[in-house]
């Protein structure tokens, strides 16, 4: 993140070493407090153990199977959309992984799109353009006041009502076809020689990083600014593209063709996935827009005025002065929105997308009947996902946080 300090070429001031607060003396009060804490913790642990043992005993007594052995058994059911290899002969654990990857996939794409839409709408609401600002307001107030489940069902029904049957599908450019069974696009197939392009991508990334460092030093020495972004983009795209063509375009495409009842050969993007992705992105974006708007408004007017007094243009001011400061305010609430989106993806079951909840806590649960184990795994997974998101965002937050001097 570029900051004013870098722009003006000054090194940021080093923080003085922190002085530790004086260590509290061990007193009678402290020992008593510690004892009470220990007793309370012991009681909670004992209660949990008692609950666990009792549950296991009662399950056994009632003749209900328990334990996690079922994860290794044959699943036996099909899943329509899988990112990893899966057949009905796979195990319940593999079915779990399919559900998990499907959840992660829709959540990751949802976060990406929600952030892009959210930033666009949030900035639009602050625009001086009356129409743009009102459209932004309309979007936020309309979308965030609808319950997400209703919105998803509406989207799914709207998608299904709008799309024609597979025989009357819309022919799209490049051999794609849009119909009620999904959006069918040509499936790229790697051919030998593609490895060279992959290597070229790595080389281009390294080259772009080196160039960025060199341009930065050059600017500090001469005071002249190169169009860094454009040149970096040219390096990143140009080198792989050159190698790709030089090695004879080693990618073939398998085109979707209507065979019997359905299209085969292409890559199928299902309407359930589209409805869920659009729903999650558009819905969460309405909250992110408000977070972004609030973050930008939180940067004091003086910053903008000072920047223009220094002669920075409005675009540069936004990029180098306003946004870096707004990001500090935006990150914590943004983390909440990302967590919400990930957890809300469990509504997929309503629109037929095979996410973790649909595959695992619906199908697998009812096939095995082991509710306690399945729900415990589910809670563990969502907890882990949320904590992981939190940790990443907190790390990012610590990086951009205002350093007090």
């Amino acid at each position, binding site marked *: 993140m570029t900051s004013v300090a870098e722009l003006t070429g000054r090194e940021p001031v080093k923080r003085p070493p922190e002085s530790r607060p004086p260590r509290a003396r061990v007193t009678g009060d402290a020992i008593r407090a510690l004892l009470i804490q220990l007793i309370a913790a012991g009681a909670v642990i004992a209660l949990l153990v008692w609950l666990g043992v009792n*549950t296991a005993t009662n399950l056994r007594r009632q003749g209900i199977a328990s334990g996690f052995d079922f994860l290794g058994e044959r699943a036996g*059911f*099909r899943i329509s959309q899988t990112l990893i290899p899966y057949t*009905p002969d796979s195990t319940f654990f593999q079915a779990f992984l399919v559900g998990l990857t499907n959840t992660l996939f829709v959540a990751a794409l949802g976060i990406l799109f929600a952030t892009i839409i959210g930033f666009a709408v949030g900035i639009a609401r602050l625009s001086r353009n009356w129409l743009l600002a009102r459209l932004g307001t309309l979007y936020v107030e309309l979308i965030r006041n609808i319950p997400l489940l209703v919105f998803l069902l509406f989207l799914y029904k709207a998608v299904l009502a709008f799309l024609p049957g597979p025989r009357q599908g819309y022919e799209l450019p490049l051999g794609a076809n849009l119909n009620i069974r999904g959006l069918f696009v040509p499936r790229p197939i790697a051919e030998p020689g593609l490895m060279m392009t992959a290597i070229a991508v790595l080389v281009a990334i390294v080259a772009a990083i080196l160039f960025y460092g060199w341009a930065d030093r050059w600017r500090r020495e001469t005071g002249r600014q190169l169009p860094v972004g454009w040149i970096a983009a040219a390096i990143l795209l140009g080198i792989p593209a050159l190698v790709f063509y030089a090695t004879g375009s080693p990618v073939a495409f398998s085109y979707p063709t209507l065979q019997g009842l359905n299209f085969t050969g292409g890559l199928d993007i299902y309407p359930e996935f589209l409805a869920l992705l659009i729903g999650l992105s558009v819905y969460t974006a309405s909250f992110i827009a408000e977070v972004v708007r609030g973050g930008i408004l939180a940067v004091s007017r003086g910053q903008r005025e000072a920047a223009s007094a220094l002669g920075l243009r409005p675009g540069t001011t936004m990029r180098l002065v306003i946004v870096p400061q707004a990001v500090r305010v935006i990150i914590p609430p943004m983390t909440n929105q990302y967590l919400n989106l990930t957890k809300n993806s469990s509504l997929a079951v309503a629109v*037929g997308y095979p996410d973790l909840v649909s595959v695992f*806590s*619906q199908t697998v649960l009812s096939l*095995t009947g082991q*509710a306690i184990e399945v729900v415990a795994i589910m809670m563990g997974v969502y907890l882990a996902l949320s904590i992981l998101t939190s940790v990443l965002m907190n790390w990012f937050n610590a990086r951009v946080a205002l350093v007090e001097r």
Partner: protein
Amino acid sequence: MRHLLIALAAFVPLAGIASAEAATLDDVMARGTVSCGVHTGLLGYAAPDNAGRWAGFDVDYCRALAAAIFNDADAVTFSPLSASERFTALQGTSVDLLARITTWTMSRDTTLGLNFAAVNYFDGQGFLVRRADGFTSAADLNGGSICVQTGTTTELNVTDFFAANNMTFNPVVFERIDEATAAYESGRCDAYTSDASGLYGTRLTLASPGDHMVLSDVISKEPLSLAVRQGDDQWFDIVKWLHNALLNAEELGVTSENVDEMLNSENVNIRRLLGTEGTFGESIGLSNAWAYQAIKLVGNYGEIFDRNLGAGSPIGIARGLNALWTNGGLQYALPIR
């Protein structure tokens, strides 16, 4: 979140101090109603009627049970359960009887802590398709998309059937039956699959039932059964013998209309059934008029079938496998003696 609540609902009683051997009948008596787990809404089996009252084949079994215990067919608390919730609800003591088109399978019987008391409907899995598509058998569905409700044996059956015939299909899986049928109706799927009897009821709820038909192919055995918690033999006996009493009533020609006259019958089988001879009701913890009350207030098996699924209903399913054994069906009444 609902799943979490269900799990907790199951967990709390399971974690509780080991109580005395479950006496469901005592609990039901103390509560004053039978708590019955039924379908969330399937015409013919369990759905609210025009007056907003629960009606259907499974619902009538709940009512017959309440009638046998309390002499009041309305002393029932209905719990609509989704397919994936039903077993947990039964394990967790929130329902006393699961009358929810549940297929009796060995794994369910042996690992879920429940017992199946009786098969009240012999069914098989079928396909609902659009007439305009021109399908004549399940083999025509190769490569197609099939809408299915999650948490049922149907997901496995359809997979096995297509694999056995070297065919493929795309499952589109929904939690609720109305979402699955809505997706089918919109054209998302070539077929909707479920138990054939349920398909007849579902067909009637579509916008234009005449455009759809149930394929004659049946790809599985679905003995739909009444389930109770394992470990309470008395309650298990009550439910088992209630079903047999309703079957015996049909076999002996005892109906809700003539049951009062039949009290004076000389036929010893009828006298045992209606409690004018013997103490069969007391032996399962009820009054000797238990079967009389159920028949009087709800009807015999044939009446329940006709009213909800058969000739007397809009669905109009033939008795088929569910005819009495004396008429070439599989419903065989165990003798009350």
